[in-house]
């Protein structure tokens, strides 16, 4: 309460407040219903957690679960719409529409508008033509692409080798620091040989370049150059859908490209919306507000038209190698033996995961089917710990298991279980939760600080489809997350990464086997399945590469 004081001058409070109220009312009436997003240009930018391409060497299991017999299907009535529209609800809004993004969200949202030189067959996972019709390695450091003719960008500009070269050089220019930069060797350059022939050269032999280009979205160079602010609020590509509008915070809308080179798509409009809560995404499909809900939590996949597909995302733990007791391979093996992968897959992931034998999924080049699944064997784990202890290894030393708070509830439960099981085997593990920035800071602290005993939770996705991406980061000396220094391993890998074709597969598989038998720097846990829910009558097969292509979706009649 204000103290009594000299009387103020001017209008009375009541009159002022009345005027203020009226002003607010008038402003409310005049304000637009939705603030339109400022027009921006597509561009490249960093994006969190770049996903890696996967080479799929065999068809991946696609599971469709029918609703339980006891559950009555939820009747929804869809409003009569004049526009045939597909609404896809995803977990988060893309921060921008930069073609240099490589996140799962980018893969979900961009690829109806942007296309790439090379795509993947949705069933086999093999590389397939898109804007490039064919490609070959003309010398160890040069790949030549024959491009599709007669394709136009959505702004009317022609797609040709010059445009493709400009885009590739833009995306992989270190000065632009795009998210997908790390997918190719620094110094990768493209040039137009003729109107529809493109050469891409790398400073060293890079047999997996076509795979890497799966992430290189080809946008109109004119549109990129026009976006002088680098805001990336629109997309100008060659795909079956054109960018229509992006109401920031609310929706991203695409409209059919009537002149699409692959034929006019059936669905007229695609709308992306985002809801952070998996249960809300699921409810939206049940209520008829969306036709596809992506990235559902296993607990929200109990009913409805659920389709799931194995992807490369693999939760794992990696261990500091330099300091005892973790420097002793028996201790690392004991920790790996203390993980009940089957239980985790069935109980925590509700069956939407499969036990993992290695950090890469079966469809990745270099996957070794001969690496056995590490059993859950606490007796053997105890024996190894006892043996190490008898040899003077300080097994009682406290080992900190670092986990990011963003990992989610299921991961937290999983890690609590792993720590408990490992401690039952005679070790001294302690879980420490940190928020993501802090977790990453600690995880990247290399070389390992003296006396640090750390195990890090991680989740690795090799969408690149080649084991070299995983090995270079997690196992090779100098790798961002590697504390390994094994000369034999290095020798094996250096030979393998120069190869291509079946020889590459064999050689990389041998590298993975060597790591599993002789190094044990990581303990893979499970391979996760990506879960979608489809609306009534919607037909669509999910892809392991996270693309949700509207042209492949059939809506209910």
């Amino acid at each position, binding site marked *: 309460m*204000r103290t*009594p004081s000299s009387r*103020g001058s001017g209008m009375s409070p009541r009159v002022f407040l009345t005027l203020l109220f009226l002003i607010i009312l008038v402003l409310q009436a005049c304000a637009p219903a939705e603030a339109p997003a400022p027009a921006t240009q597509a561009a490249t930018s960093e994006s969190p957690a770049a996903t890696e391409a996967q080479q799929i060497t065999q068809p991946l299991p696609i599971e469709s679960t029918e609703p339980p017999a006891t559950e009555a299907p939820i009747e929804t009535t869809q409003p009569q719409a004049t526009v045939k529209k597909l609404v896809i609800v995803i977990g988060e809004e893309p921060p921008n529409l930069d073609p240099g993004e490589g996140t799962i969200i980018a893969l979900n949202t961009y690829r109806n508008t942007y296309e790439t030189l090379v795509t993947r067959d949705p069933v086999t996972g093999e590389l397939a033509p898109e804007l490039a019709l064919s490609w070959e390695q003309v010398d160890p450091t040069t790949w030549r692409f024959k491009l599709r003719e007669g394709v136009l960008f959505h702004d009317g500009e022609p797609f040709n080798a010059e445009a493709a070269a400009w885009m590739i050089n833009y995306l992989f220019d270190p000065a632009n620091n795009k998210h997908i930069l790390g997918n190719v060797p620094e110094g990768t350059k493209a040039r137009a040989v003729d109107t529809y022939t493109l050469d891409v050269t790398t400073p060293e032999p890079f047999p997996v370049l076509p795979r890497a280009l799966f992430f290189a979205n080809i946008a109109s160079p004119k549109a990129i150059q026009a976006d002088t602010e680098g805001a990336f609020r629109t997309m100008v590509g060659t795909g079956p859908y054109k960018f229509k509008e992006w109401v920031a915070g609310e929706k991203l809308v695409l409209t059919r490209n009537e002149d699409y080179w692959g034929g006019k798509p059936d669905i007229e409009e695609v709308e992306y919306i985002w809801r952070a809560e998996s249960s809300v995404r699921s409810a939206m499909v049940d209520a008829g507000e969306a036709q596809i809900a992506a990235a559902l939590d296993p607990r929200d996949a109990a009913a409805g038209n659920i389709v799931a597909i194995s992807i490369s995302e693999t939760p794992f733990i990696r261990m500091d190698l330099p300091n005892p007791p973790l420097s002793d391979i028996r201790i690392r093996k004991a920790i790996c033996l203390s993980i009940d992968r089957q239980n985790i897959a069935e109980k925590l992931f509700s069956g939407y995961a499969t036990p993992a034998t290695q950090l890469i999924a079966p469809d990745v080049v270099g996957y070794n089917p001969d690496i056995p699944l590490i059993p859950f064997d606490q007796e053997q784990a105890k024996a190894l710990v006892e043996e190490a202890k008898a040899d003077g290894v300080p097994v009682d030393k406290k080992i900190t298991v670092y986990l990011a708070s963003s990992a989610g509830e299921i991961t937290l439960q999983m890690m609590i279980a792993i720590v408990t099981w490992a401690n039952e085997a005679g070790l001294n593990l302690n879980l420490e939760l940190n928020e993501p920035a802090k977790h*990453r800071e600690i995880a990247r602290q290399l070389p390992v600080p003296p006396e640090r005993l750390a195990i890090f939770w991680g989740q690795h996705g090799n969408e690149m489809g080649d084991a070299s991406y995983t090995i270079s980061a997690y196992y090779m000396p100098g790798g961002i997350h590697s504390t390994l220094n094994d000369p034999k391993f290095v020798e094996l890998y250096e030979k393998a990464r120069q190869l291509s074709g079946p020889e590459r597969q064999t050689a990389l598989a041998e590298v993975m086997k060597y790591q599993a038998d002789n190094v044990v720097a990581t303990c893979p846990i499970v391979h996760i399945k990506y879960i979608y829910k489809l609306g009534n009558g919607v037909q669509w097969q999910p892809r392991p590469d996270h693309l949700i292509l509207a042209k492949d979706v059939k809506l209910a009649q």
Partner: protein
Amino acid sequence: MTTYIFRRLFYSIFVVIAVTILVFLLSRLTGDAALLYLPETASNEMIERYREIHGLNDPILIQLGRFLSNAIRLDFGKSMWQKVPASDLVLQRLPLTLELAFGTTFLSLFIATIIGVLAALHPLGIFDSLTTGISLFGVTVPSFWLALILIYLFSVRLGWLPTSGSGTWKHAILPMIVLVWGPTGYLVRVVRTSVLEQLSAAYLITGRAKGLSEIYLLFRHALPNAAFPIITVASSTFIGIANGAVIVETVFGWPGIGKLTIDAISNRDFPVLQATVFVVGIVVVLTNLVLDLLYAAIDPRVRLETNA
């Protein structure tokens, strides 16, 4: 009074600036923005380049100087994630948050006033029990759970309301229902207590003795005198929601400031964080100013202080 308003705004802006500077400094102690934005396998060179591009390698005082010289022009820089001016992002989201805040505050006031007054008029009766029930409900029921239950019931099963999103008045109903319980639970007790105090005051007894009706006494005398604590608590509700109802915005996909702020904190999007703090600070200042004016409007005995 005009002088008072200007003087209040003048001093308050310093508070807002001080808070913004504090947030600026504290946020830079919380971790590396580059590590969050770039992929986990990003090279050290990529991380260094990101820091260079965004000026994060500069000494903290240089960064602060740059920030202040831009902030004077209300330029908080570009969002490091969304690459658009941070102030644009915040100002786009603000009206939606204010919509929720106004709606919830008025609804809460409306419900709490009716039930609280009835509870005060009939102590130990059914409305008293309702007061207790609402208070308990508001305190004990998690808003996250309530939101999901309401979505399931009203959207999925009954189909009466949209599950989430914004754009129409129907979209605001479920979020407001979730938000209203907490403040109503507290406010209804304040209303009851405050009105009860006034009902037993000597001047009301005099009024009854003079033959004035209870309704007249209630609306003309008791409620205005009971209003001060009620509007104080209601303004706290408004400010709390204007800061961002994070859970509700997240569950319902309501594109307000709360979710934007939490994402900015999580992603170390410093420009957006700073812009949000500044804008919300202004909202708080203005709310407190309006509150003071309301005091003066309701009670003629209150004079706004004009001396320094």
